[in-house]
Structure formats: structure tokens, C-alpha cells
């Protein structure tokens, strides 16, 4: 089990709405190991930002405690930051470089290694800044204590966060999200297949096969990343089923010739968006409408741009926003700040743009 969880590289690193997690992580404490907690991914922008923020808050806190007045605080703060900054930046660079090794280590070993690394850097910097003096370590214990404490608090914070957002817990959330696949799609599709059975049994067979495959994915354990090509195939099967019902009203424009087929993405990121596009963009129209799907790689990112006709309707925003929020949360669970989802209505076209870091299967 822990093997499969670890295959999601950043699954523990991200998410919002922290307030709700406290109770959950406390309950999860007893079975900590089952959640496959690992060190934070030091190459993730979100993690780096959180470390920077955490350290600076700690500096501010210590200076505020020490300063007799607000006037002297400014100077002391500058001094303290000048002292801390080289250590902080060096640590981050080293952690970035060693991230691969650290992530393969067991959690406890990794945490000790991080602690030792930071303390060693503290010692090194201490000696360098006092190189004109003879080797003297008498004043360093205070720094060790401070740096050690801040590192420990940060590690503990990341661990708590990782546990709260661990795939095992977010799995429950993911399943709740998936349960919201519109039931009308299932019933309308079954109805469409029923209508084919007498006249066109072969098409009915294909349709049922597509449905089986679609629902196998919808009901699967979706913690692991899936190749982009698989998700696109699923989208084709889904749209095939919708085409059955909607006929010429649904027209699909595929631009997937240049897509990075080997990119690993969270499953069911695109399909629900297409479901939205059909439900909100095509079904309310009397005339045929085009859904366009454009997937490409640019630098180290995979882009997916979905467009559908925009027909402002009363029920549009509620259902649509919920689906978008769901996908956004899942992207955050997987990639933290490195993935994004933007949606906008421009004229009579509604566009959703997803950006995901490009990871191939081998490195995932």
C-alpha cells in the first residue's frame, strides 16, 4: 500500500482549507505509518515558499521577544535576517539538490538527515564568519538550539500537513468528488443503449463496452497518476457515448496530435470538464455546438485547453463551479502551487485551461 502511495510524488504537498484538517490529523495519529508520510518535496515551489515564510516568522518572533521597544526592533530584525539568510538559502539549495536521495529514504532517517544537514551548515557558516578567530565553538550552541528548533517545528508542520492531506484521507474526498458524476449521464446513456439494442445491436455492444470502461475508471482507486494518452482515450469513449444521444448537435474538434502522450497526470481531470462542456455548453443549445480539445506540451508543462459554446443559463454557475473546484483541489493535492486551472467566458466561448508539470512515467 505504501508503495502505491509513494508513487504520487507530491501528493502530500499541497491543498487548502487547513482549518478542517486538524481534527482529522489528530485522529490519524494512531495509524501514522499507514499513511506513508514522507519528507516534503523540497523542489516544490509551495514547499519552498512555506519554508521561507516559516523561518522569517520565527526570526520576527525571536526578535520581538528580545527587543525592548519597537524602535530597536527594526535594526535587530535586519541584523537577524542578515544572519539567517545565508543559512536559509544554502539549506534550501542543498535540500533541493538532495531531494532525490532524501525522498527515497525512510521518513525518520530523512528527517534526521535534514536536521544534521542544517546544523552542519550552521556550524560551517559560524566558523566562516569567525575565521579570523582561532577555532572557537563556545558561542555556537545557542545557534544550534535556535536553528534546530525552527527546523524541527517546520518538519513537524510539514508532517502534520502531509498526514492531513495524505492520499489515504484525500482518497475519501476524491471518492466523494467522484460520486458526483452526474447520474443523468448514466441514465440517459443506458436509455440510449436500450434504444440501439433492437435496431443496431453492434453499436449497442460498442456503447456498452465504452460505458463499462468509463465506469471502471470512475469507480477505480484514483490515487495513482495515469498516462495522458489513457485519459484522452477515456475522453473519446465518453464523447462517443454522448454523441450517441446528441448526434449532430455535438461536434468535437480534437487537437491532440502534438500532445505528450507519456505525460503522467491525475486521472479524471479532463473527462469531468468535458461532461461539463456537454451539459452546460451543448445540451441547452438547439443548434449544433463545437467542443474543442487542445493538448500540448510547452517547456516542462502540459497544457490542456478545452473550449465549448457558452450559453449563460440560470443553473450554469452552481454545477460548473463545483466541478471546477473539485478538479482544482485535486490538482493542488497532487502538485501544490505547480499546477493551475483557469476558467473564463470570452464572448460566446467558455474556456478552461489546465497546466500540469510534465512528468514522464519513469520519473513519476
Amino acid at each position, binding site marked *: 500500500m505504501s508503495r502505491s502511495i509513494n508513487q504520487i510524488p507530491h501528493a502530500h504537498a499541497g491543498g487548502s482549507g487547513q482549518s478542517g484538517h486538524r481534527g482529522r490529523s489528530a485522529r490519524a495519529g494512531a495509524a501514522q505509518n499507514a499513511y506513508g508520510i514522507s519528507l516534503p518535496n523540497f523542489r516544490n515551489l509551495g514547499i519552498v515558499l512555506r519554508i521561507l515564510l516559516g523561518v522569517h516568522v520565527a526570526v520576527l518572533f525571536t526578535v520581538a521577544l528580545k527587543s525592548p521597544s519597537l524602535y530597536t526592533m527594526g535594526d535587530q530584525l535586519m541584523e537577524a535576517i542578515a544572519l539567517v539568510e545565508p543559512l536559509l538559502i544554502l539549506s534550501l539549495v542543498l535540500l533541493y539538490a538532495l531531494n532525490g536521495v532524501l525522498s527515497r529514504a525512510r521518513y525518520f532517517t530523512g528527517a534526521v538527515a535534514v536536521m544534521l544537514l542544517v546544523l552542519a551548515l550552521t556550524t560551517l557558516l559560524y566558523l566562516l564568519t569567525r575565521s579570523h578567530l582561532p577555532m572557537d565553538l563556545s558561542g555556537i550552541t545557542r545557534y544550534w538550539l535556535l536553528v534546530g528548533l525552527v527546523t524541527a517545528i517546520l518538519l513537524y508542520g510539514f508532517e502534520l500537513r502531509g498526514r492531513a492531506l495524505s492520499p489515504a484521507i484525500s482518497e475519501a474526498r476524491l471518492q466523494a468528488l467522484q460520486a458526483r458524476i452526474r447520474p443523468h449521464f448514466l441514465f440517459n446513456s443506458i436509455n440510449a443503449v436500450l434504444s*440501439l439494442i433492437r435496431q443496431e445491436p453492434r453499436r449497442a455492444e460498442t456503447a456498452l463496452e465504452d460505458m463499462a470502461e468509463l465506469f471502471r475508471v470512475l469507480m477505480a482507486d484514483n490515487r495513482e497518476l495515469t498516462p495522458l494518452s489513457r485519459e484522452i482515450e477515456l475522453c473519446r469513449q465518453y464523447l462517443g457515448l454522448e454523441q450517441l444521444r446528441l448526434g449532430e448537435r455535438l461536434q468535437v474538434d480534437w487537437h491532440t496530435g502534438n500532445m505528450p502522450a507519456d505525460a503522467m497526470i491525475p486521472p479524471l481531470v479532463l473527462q469531468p470538464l468535458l461532461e461539463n462542456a456537454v451539459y452546460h455548453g451543448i445540451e441547452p443549445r438547439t443548434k449544433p455546438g463545437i467542443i474543442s480539445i487542445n493538448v500540448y506540451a510547452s517547456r516542462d508543462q502540459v497544457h490542456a485547453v478545452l473550449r465549448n459554446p457558452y450559453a449563460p443559463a440560470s443553473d450554469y454557475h452552481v454545477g460548473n463551479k463545483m466541478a471546477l473546484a473539485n478538479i482544482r483541489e485535486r490538482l493542488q493535492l497532487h502538485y501544490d502551487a505547480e499546477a493551475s486551472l483557469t476558467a473564463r467566458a470570452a464572448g460566446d466561448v467558455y474556456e478552461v485551461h489546465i497546466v500540469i508539470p510534465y512528468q514522464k512515467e519513469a520519473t513519476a
Partner: protein
Amino acid sequence: MTDMTAAALRVLIVDDEAPARSRLRDLLADCAEKQPLEIVGDAASGAAALQLFAEKPCDVVLLDVRMPGMDGIETAQHLRKLDNPPAIIFATAYDAYALKAFEVHAIDYLLKPIRAARLAEALALAQKSRPPKPEVLADLRRAPRCRRVNAARCI
């Protein structure tokens, strides 16, 4: 009375999805064994349904709720206002519209996918609620005494 119930129930199918219409045709064909009926036509939209009804009146309209343009509820509101309004049976994949459906006095509400037996029940309900034909009413008005005498004789 007997010849009146024996008259085929005229049915109009309204659904924006072609497979759904063809499915209803199949089901109606199954029901036709027990309940004589005639499909007067099918329409892909509410507007088309109103036009078709004006040309070929019918007794029952099988009506989808969620359709582009004029939806099923609105179509039903229009149909109600006509002379000799048809009985409305909604057929939809959603159960969320049931309340609205009965506000427009639908006689039944079927959830897709529909079973032939359930459709037959709805049609039987439509048959029962079918108003007597105008010419029958006219006959009753013209010779009430005669009918009463006949009835007395029968007993």
C-alpha cells in the same frame, strides 16, 4: 362506453434526443398489444410539439423535461391552455422535476430508462382520464330521456 375505450389512444412523442424517441417508439409498440394506440408523430423540441399538436391532435403527450429552447414544463403549460388539452406524461432521467411536473397537472412522471410495464400503467391512467369525445357529449345532451329509459330497461 365500450367502443369509446376501444378507440386507439393517440400518442405524441417529444424528446430532443433521437435515441430516446426511438426507444419510446419501441416501448409503445410493446404496449400496443394490450392497449390499442396510435403514434401520431414525434417532435424534437417543445415548439415542434405544439405545431404538430395543432395539426394532429392527440390524447397523450410523452414529454421530456430537459430540452433546449422551450423545456418540457413550458411546453406542458402551453398545451394545457389549448382546447381539448392532451394528458401529459413526463419522461425524464431526473427525479428533481417531479414537483414542477405536477404543478402543470401531468398525470404521470416516468423515469428513464422506462420499463414497458410502467409505460403501460401510465397509458392506462391516461385512458381513464380521457374526456369523452365531443360528439358523445352532444348525443347525451340531445337525448337524455331516451338513454335513461334504455338504462332502466337494461336493469
